[in-house]
C-alpha cells in the first residue's frame, strides 16, 4: 500500500484489493470483517484496527453512504493508511489504539459506487429495485429508525431522498445496525459525506436539542479549528436541523439515540467549482485536513469515557 495511488479515484475492486493489501501488510493491527451483503450481493467490508483485547470500546468511521461523493471513499482509503502509519509514531493515535478499536467502512454503498463507475457518475442511492416503480434506489441516509418517514425525506421512489418502505429495510443499513447493536461498546460514530464543508451532530429530524449539545458543540468547534489549521478550510458546525435543513431517518440520529454520544457527520470540502467532481488532486489535501478533525473527535472520545 506504500505505492498505492492515493491521488486518484479508484474502482470498487481496487478499493477492495487495497483493503486486502492493508490487512496482509499489517496482520497484527488490521483485520477485515464482512458485516453483510449489499442488495446486489457485494460484501460489506469493515476494517478493524485493533491492538488486542476483546470488545474494547470502539470508534466507528464510515465513508461512501452516498455513491457519487467520491472524495469520501477516497478519503477513507487515506484514513486507513494513516491509522497504520501513525500507530507507533503519533502519540494520540497510539494511545487511542492501545485502548480502543477503530472500525472503518470505506464503501457503505458498494452497489451505488459501482454504478457510478459503470453507468451513471451522478448516482446517489443504492440499487434496490422498488416494487411498483420503475425508479431505482433508496437513499441510505434516510432509511434509519430515527424520525423515519418525517420531513426531509420522501416516499417517492423517484426522489433522491427516497426513504424506503420501512426503517432499516436496506441491507447496507441493516448490516451496520446489527453490527452496532451486537458490538454494544461503540463510543463514537462518524459518518462522512461530501460536500459543503460542515461538521454536524444530532439532531436532523427534530428541533429538540441533543442532551449533550453543549459538549458536542465544543468538540465540533475544536475539530474544525484543527481542520482549518492545515489549509485554512472553513467549516460551519452545529446540529443538522439548524445548520442545513430538516432530514429524517439519518444515521447519526439513530446512533445518538442508541446511546453513542459522539455521533458526528462531516460534509467534506467544497472548492466552489466542482461539486461531486472534485479533482483527484484534492483527495489527499481533503483527507489530510479531515484527519486532523477526526483525531480531535477520537481523542476526545478516548479521554472522556462514558
Amino acid at each position: 500500500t506504500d505505492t498505492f495511488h492515493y491521488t486518484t479515484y479508484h474502482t470498487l475492486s481496487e478499493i477492495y484489493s487495497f483493503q486486502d493489501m492493508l490487512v496482509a501488510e499489517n496482520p497484527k493491527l488490521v483485520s477485515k470483517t464482512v458485516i453483510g451483503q449489499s442488495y446486489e450481493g457485494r460484501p460489506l467490508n469493515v476494517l478493524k484496527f485493533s491492538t488486542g483485547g476483546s470488545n474494547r470500546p470502539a470508534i466507528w468511521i464510515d465513508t461512501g453512504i452516498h455513491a457519487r461523493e467520491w472524495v469520501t471513499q477516497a478519503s477513507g482509503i487515506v484514513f486507513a493508511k494513516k491509522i497504520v502509519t501513525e500507530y507507533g509514531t503519533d502519540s494520540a493515535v497510539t494511545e487511542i489504539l492501545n485502548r480502543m478499536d477503530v472500525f472503518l467502512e470505506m464503501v457503505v454503498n458498494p452497489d451505488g459506487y459501482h454504478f457510478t463507475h459503470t453507468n451513471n457518475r451522478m448516482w446517489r442511492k443504492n440499487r434496490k429495485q422498488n416494487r411498483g416503480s420503475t425508479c431505482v434506489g433508496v437513499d441510505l441516509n434516510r432509511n434509519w429508525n430515527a424520525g423515519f418517514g418525517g420531513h426531509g425525506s420522501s416516499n417517492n421512489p423517484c426522489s433522491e431522498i427516497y426513504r424506503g418502505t420501512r426503517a432499516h429495510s436496506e441491507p447496507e443499513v441493516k448490516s451496520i445496525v446489527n453490527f452496532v447493536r451486537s458490538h454494544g461498546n461503540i463510543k463514537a460514530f462518524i459518518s462522512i459525506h461530501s460536500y459543503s464543508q460542515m461538521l454536524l451532530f444530532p439532531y436532523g429530524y427534530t428541533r429538540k436539542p441533543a442532551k449533550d449539545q453543549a459538549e458536542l458543540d465544543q468538540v465540533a468547534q475544536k475539530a474544525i479549528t484543527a481542520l482549518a489549521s492545515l489549509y485554512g478550510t472553513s467549516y460551519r458546525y452545529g446540529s443538522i436541523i439548524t445548520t442545513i435543513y430538516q432530514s429524517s431517518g439519518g444515521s447519526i440520529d439513530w446512533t445518538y439515540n442508541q446511546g453513542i454520544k459522539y455521533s458526528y457527520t462531516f460534509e467534506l470540502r467544497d472548492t466552489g467549482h466542482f461539486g461531486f467532481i472534485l479533482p483527484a488532486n484534492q483527495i489527499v489535501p481533503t483527507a489530510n485536513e479531515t484527519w486532523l478533525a477526526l483525531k480531535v473527535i477520537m481523542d476526545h472520545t478516548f479521554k472522556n469515557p462514558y
Partner: protein
Amino acid sequence: KGDFHGHQVFRIVPKDDVQLALVRVLEDILDLELDFWRWVTPVDVRVPSHSLQVVKTYLENHCIKYFTMIKDLQALLDEEQRQMKSIAPAGN
C-alpha cells in the same frame, strides 16, 4: 454510461426564505429533471440541457441570483475518466 453533455450546474444564492421557497418549487417540476446537489445556501443544482432556458428564465424573473458553477458537466467527467485511466494501470 450516463451522458451529461450540455448539463450545467448552477449555484443559486437565494437572498431570503422567500427566494429559497421559490427555488424549491423547481424541485417539484419533474419534467425539468433537476438534480439538487445540495440544499444549503447557496443551492447547487444540476440542470439538463433541455431545461436550461426554463430554469434561467425562472430565476431571472424572480430576481434570484445565480451563476454557472459547471458549464459542461460531461467535460469534467471526461477529464476525471482520463486521469483515472492514465494512472490506474501503472499503480495497480
